[in-house]
């Protein structure tokens, strides 16, 4: 049993949960699924730096500046950006869902309840 194995399984579970929720029919559930999925993806990108516990990339004098002594800082920087931007997008989607519900009375992902939509199509 290694940390890598547990992390891999953990990522798989997060992804599965995220995808399943993504396919639900209410906007809020989709957002929760998206959030789970983005946790998984951020972790995945971060893990391209592999598992290096206990070696934060804060340079100390005396230690050679190689990856033997420090974790890889580049994926960390990238994921930091990703976290902030996905937060911005989550906020935006939530507000759009809010407004949409106020306008149409429905929080279904297609913008209208299926029954109403079918009636509307028949009218058309």
């Amino acid at each position: 049993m290694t940390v890598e194995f547990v992390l891999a399984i953990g990522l798989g579970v997060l992804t599965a949960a995220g995808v399943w929720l993504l396919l639900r029919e209410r906007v809020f559930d989709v957002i929760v699924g998206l959030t789970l999925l983005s946790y998984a993806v951020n972790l995945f990108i971060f893990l391209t730096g592999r598992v290096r516990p206990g070696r934060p990339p804060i340079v100390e004098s005396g230690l050679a500046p190689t990856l033997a002594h420090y974790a890889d800082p580049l994926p960390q920087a990238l994921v930091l950006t990703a976290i902030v931007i996905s937060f911005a997008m989550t906020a935006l989607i939530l507000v759009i869902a809010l407004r949409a519900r106020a306008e149409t009375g429905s929080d279904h992902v297609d913008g209208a309840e299926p029954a109403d939509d079918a009636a509307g199509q028949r009218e058309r």
Partner: protein
Amino acid sequence: MQAALLLPVLALLPFAGSVLVLASPNAQRMRAVSLAAAVVVAATALALAAAPAVFAGEVLHWRIDWMPQLGLSFGFRMDGLAWLFALLIGGIGMLIVLYAAYYLDPGDPAARFFAFLLLFMGAMLGVVLADNLLLLVVFWELTSLASFLLIGYWSHEAEARQGARMALTITGAGGLLLLGGVVLLGHIVGSFDLEAVLASGDLIRAHPLYPVALLLVLAGAFTKSAQFPFHFWLPHAMAAPTPVSAYLHSATMVKAGVFLLARMYPALGGSDLWFWTVAPVGLVTLLVGAYIAIFQHDLKGLLAYSTISHLGLITLLFGIDTRLAVVAAVFHILNHATFKASLFMAAGIIDHEAGSRDMRRLNGLWKSMPITAVLGTVASAAMAGVPLLNGFLSKEMFFTEAVGHNSSAVMNFLLPAGALVAGIFAVAYSVRFIHDVFFNGEPVGLPKTPHEPPRFMRLPVEVLVVLCVLVGLFPGLIIGPVLAVGAQAALFGGPYAPLPAYKLAIWHGFSLPLAMSMTATAGGVLLYFALQRRFNLHRLARLPGWLASGGREAFHVVTEAKLRTARVVTETIENGNLQRYLFLLVAVALLAGLAPHLGAGPAPASAPVAGTPLTFGVLVIWAIGMAAATGTTIVYRQRLLALLLLGAVGLVVSLTFVYLSAPDLALTQLLVEMVTIILMMLALHWLPPESPREASRLRQVRDFVLAIGAGAGVAALSHALLTSDFDSISPYFLRTSVAQGGGANVVNVILVDYRGFDTMGEITVLGLAGIVIHALLAGFVPARRPAPPSAEPRSPFLPLIARLLLPLAVLLSLHLFLRGHNAPGGGFIAGLVLALALILQYVANGRQWVEQRLRTDFRAWIGAGLLIAGAAGIGSWFFGAPFLTSSYAYWALPVLGAVPLASAVVFDLGVCLTVVGATMLALVSIGRLTPPEGAPR
């Protein structure tokens, strides 16, 4: 050289003329006519000017190399065959322009007509003059397009529109197949140059791809020349004005197909496959067209089917694959164009003057229009093959070739027999034309009183009929050299192949072909009158036999089926349902990820690296995380609970970051997590607290399967990733971070220095999101407002603690900000801490309390942050360095000693302000939707 310059002028003049005519107003018909006439006459004159060179045996070339790498050149080539056709196009074009000037109604947009006509003429000239196969195909398609425009000229008539559409579909599809064939030929020969292709006949015929290329090219030729089974578009194209029918659909455009046969004969002909494909198609078309023509009631319909039949004859001649047959074919192309164009124009005159095209009503017209009757009779006789007219000569050559043919027993019988039968039919329908229109009693219910047409409207017909007679009487004199030159070009071995010995004479002595002609004439007349007596052809509403439908029904069935399929496919894939789109998206992504692993699969990237031994802490944390994630999916309908579990997952991720040596990341994740949860709770206030039960169980199971698949894929991928070795560019950052970046926290230095531009983009996105949220909610008054929170006193502890925490939080934020360059911290984290502290005030003390004390517009914070960040970047320009270059120095402060200060801290300040502004703006905008406590309901 001067002669060669003639070619591009000749080819491009009609296009220029078309544009000019299009620019003139529709009402001024005379202007359009004179312009068009000038262009056509000039083109014909240019073609004639090339005559001396062509007759001397020269082949004129002109070219510019357009894309030599692709073998595309724009050039023209005129040999005997091209010259012959150019003369045909120009000569008949002149007559048509004159004719059309009288034919068009005053209400018809004349400029448009002549512009399209000139466009067609230019395209047709391009087809015959092109010296590059690809260029030929381009002009080929252009002729289809011009034909479409001309057939649909009277666009208010449904028949015209349908006919145009059908013609374009079939000839366009043929053009596409032709392109395929041409590309193959280019591949075989190695060049698209016409001379190269024509010289490589043996190479092409020996190549394994020869059958495919041949069939594709033939498909193009057969669709254009209305051969069976693609013949049915031509009768429907008769909805076009008669000048168009006379020009395009008898004399020139449909001849493009047989021109292609003549042109490609040296390269593609001379093989068994050629014979067994081209000859049978030609034979069937010859017979079918002639048969149907007898039973037509529409003047133009009869002529259309007769055209189909004659084109079949020409095709058959090419199919017979002897030199003499090729000569006969070229001869018949000329003759047919002459008499058919005159017949169409005569039909148009009858239509114009009598008001009807229906032969059941037009009778006895020789009394009212005697001269037209004579002209029509002579032309019809030429069509039938009566001696002393040009049709007879080419028909004799045809019979000679059919009789003299010797390949297989079947064909040895079928060809002469078919020729005879076709001859009988041809005479029959020609007699029908003459008899039913000009004789056969009195006219029945005609809208106009028939009379002779204007002098100059009849002139083109007269010219052509006189030509028919002259060629029939003195063939060697009139047409001999022209034919020789044209036929030579069509034969093997390039432009100088030896012509077979033949004699263009009226009398070849008593021979089998002559006997056949006599039999055909007699038989045809007998057939017609027998049919008349037996059936009274006028009563025949539908054609006997299976040929009744004329292909239109089949065409409609096919197009309807295609449209239906397209509709079904669209409704399945794009039905407006987001869940279906997402399902398809994830499924396809999963398949794409699986695809390399089906079968052998790729080799592993490297030898697997030993893993890190598992500690108890990691196991527990991730067990909780996985349970929480799974729990989210189980209790997702209770949204608040799902949110709490989501928070748990976020915490696990944050702790993982801590374990894996990413302090900055862990802090950011934690803080963003908190803000997100608060945001979602606020939004939940305005959304239903629970999701309704989903109707379809099947969908949940289906999604479950897909989700498991996706999860398994990601797990396998991550494991492969984590256990493989890697190399990185990061040692560069580690080495230079302190010396050049001025900071020990490499992640922070990357964010604000090495990758400062990315961060600039990131805060811009964040700021924009905040502003959009504000804009979405600014004037928004929700309809159903929940009850405002009661003004009852709450627990006093939370507000007190919150107020005490605020200065500490501000201090912490400042500390994190300042130390960010050398220890975990930085602009993002500091900003988020400050934002959270402010949010805590809102939550604990209420909106009114905070807004009384903190009167600020957070949009200004966003703007200030972005401006400061931008200024920090621009500032480096003043020092001659690129955007966002930072530097650092040490300040000596009295008590603290040397304090490192990097200019990147200014950039970080901008980041911090933007983060605070955007976060607060978003949350406050949502929070404002709730009425403040104590407000009236």
